[in-house]
């Protein structure tokens, strides 16, 4: 046992390391049941542990730390799911508007078909474009605010939204 082992956590992280060791496996399983995606679940477990850290001083001796962590994890996961479904709804509306407002080469209406195809196309957008578009249409942020959240400049954010919209329009036109 070397006291200066590089991976020994800073004292403040120590309590969290103990909590994570004891409950990390079941919490990860719990979160994955809600969000069904490993990357998202990992982010949410991280958020759960950071929230736990902030509140750990209020966790008194003898209180049920396991139930407490489960509550934090559940809230974080459900908040995420709610935000995600708001985002999906806004993107779906956006896609529907695009489909309605874009001229079709064959003059067909086929709005339902477009919407499904567009939705798949949204999922295929590069992560940064999808994020920028989502912040624009779901959260109605301006480009400065989008840049502040995803990094880069306002111009880059505008370009990402533009590229995303262009790809979706091309999809409607069958290009």
């Amino acid at each position, binding site marked *: *046992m070397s*006291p200066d*082992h*590089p*991976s*020994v*956590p*800073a004292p*403040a*992280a*120590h309590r*969290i*390391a*103990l909590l*994570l*060791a*004891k*409950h*990390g*496996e079941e919490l*990860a*399983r719990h979160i994955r049941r809600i969000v069904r995606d*490993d990357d998202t*679940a*990992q982010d949410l*477990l*991280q958020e759960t*542990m*950071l929230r736990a*850290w*902030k509140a750990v001083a209020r966790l008194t001796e003898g209180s049920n730390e396991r139930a407490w962590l489960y509550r934090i994890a559940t809230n974080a996961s459900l908040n995420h799911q709610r935000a995600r479904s708001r985002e999906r709804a806004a993107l779906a509306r956006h896609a529907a508007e695009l489909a309605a407002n874009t001229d079709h080469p064959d003059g067909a209406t086929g709005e339902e078909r477009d919407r499904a195809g567009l939705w798949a196309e949204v999922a295929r957008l590069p992560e940064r474009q999808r994020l920028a578009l989502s912040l624009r249409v779901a959260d109605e942020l301006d480009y400065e605010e989008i840049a502040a959240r995803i990094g880069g400049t306002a111009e880059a954010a505008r370009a990402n939204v533009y590229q995303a919209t262009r790809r979706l329009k091309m999809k409607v036109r069958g290009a």
Partner: protein
Amino acid sequence: MSGITAQEREAVERIVRGAFGALTGRGGEPLRYAMMDDTPVGVLGLAAGRRGLRHLSFVRGEDDFLERLLAEHGEVAVLKSSELDDVRRALDRYFAGKRLDFDLAVDLGDLAPFHQRVLDATAKVPAGRVATYTQIAARAGSPKASRAAGNALHNNPVAIVVPCHRVLRTDGSLGGYGGGLPVKEWLLRHEGALL
């Protein structure tokens, strides 16, 4: 988040990444642990990696055991797990006197070669029998190193399963034991090596 420095935040991210990587098989080898709270010899902490059992320790409780594991292995991939049920069942059978020898994979790969040889020699002493520090040193290839063999046994990470309690002084006295001499005596009586 207020009250949390960037450094601390980074530490949490590292812990979560490591633990989650272990869970999803994307990270390094996890060290899984479990507790046995009421055995005839007190509280035991068990920990195993993919290649086998790495720790069987006499501890004061879960936090005590975890502190030791984290200090020795870092916090990255130490996780409580139900996957050690086979080890717990084997120990239950041992304590019930139904089966006194163990057929469990043990991983001593982190130890120095002599340390490993001493423990390998010790693992071959069957229940109900004893050996001396000198005999174990000889079987480990260094007949004159009985004191070093004693030290190696005192630092046996896998107590009971690697039966260092079966090793005594040449004069027949018990010698030492990490779990305390009353425990060593209990184990030897339980196995029928002491009357």
